């Protein structure tokens, strides 16, 4: 557990990868980019454990961090938390980049469908699957 100033070794990186965007402006930007038929990126459930799958090969000219996400997801699904770790970017910033990629249809996301609803216990079938998985460790 530790805290430190953001961007200690690379002060401008967060500003550059997000284009210095405010969330509202980022949403407008994503609307402009959005392809016909692509889901609204703002509707996507982006949890720490939402799994991200790349769609197709990174097109030339894609910003470095976006291309890195597609490369990381090229040989299997990867969680938002793992992407954040491998890219060394805060979770909030990775969410914004993922919404960019959703808008242009370059990724698909798999939300945590068996996660319990607030104030509810996980369902028994899920618990059974987890138990079996853990016992096989």
């Amino acid at each position, binding site marked *: 557990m530790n805290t430190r100033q953001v961007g200690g070794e690379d002060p401008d990186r*967060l500003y550059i990868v997000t284009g210095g965007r405010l969330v509202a402006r980022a949403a407008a930007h994503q609307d402009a980019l959005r392809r016909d038929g692509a889901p609204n990126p703002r509707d996507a459930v982006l949890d720490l454990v939402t799994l991200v799958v790349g769609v197709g090969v990174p097109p030339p000219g894609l910003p470095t961090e976006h291309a890195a996400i597609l490369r990381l997801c090229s040989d299997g699904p990867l969680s938002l938390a793992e992407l954040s770790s491998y890219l060394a970017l*805060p979770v909030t910033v990775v969410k914004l980049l993922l919404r960019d990629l959703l808008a242009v249809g370059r990724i698909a996301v798999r939300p945590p469908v068996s996660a319990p609803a607030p104030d509810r216990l996980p369902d028994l079938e*899920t618990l059974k699957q987890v138990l079996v998985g853990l016992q096989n460790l």
Partner: protein
Amino acid sequence: MVQRAAAVRSGPPLRATVGDALKIVIVGGFGAGKTTLVGAVSEIPPLSTEEIMTTAGVGIDDPAAVADKNTTTVAFDFGRITLNDRQVLYLFGAPGQQRFWFLWDQLFGGSLGAVVLVDTRRIADSWYAIDRLEHHGMPFIVAVNRFDGPRPPLARVRQALDLSPRIPLIECDARARRSAKHVLIDLVAHLTDLHSAERTP
């Protein structure tokens, strides 16, 4: 520490068929052994990620605010266990201190339950976490990480934690895979028991 520029993944990739991710949160004070426990059972070396917070301890959702000098990042560790062809379990290590509780929604939202990992040399570190978990109605068990040195009996630890008799209290060795695995199994068993309790009030 994570690699800064390489952006390469470590450990085996997830199977392409995996589409349902679950999470369990390990809460504990500094040095209680959260990362050790995660590392003992994870199929990938524990990773560290970070989220932006204000120095006032409030989470923010606007990346533009990172330019503000009143923001810091808070780091947290996690690992991964593939359960079957379809499901994967992520384990997050969460700091228990008050100022990091803004991560609550991100870490605990949708999680199966929590484990409070206790270092008996620093019992007081766990009070706040236990209080918060109870307040939010998040199901949890408490695991005492056995370090070398004096081993107070569990009954005394329960008393010192002011822990309800309904909450399981167990011992573990966070370094040992088998022991760490049993901590998780005990949590799942507790969650299953809570189901039965719900059906027979």
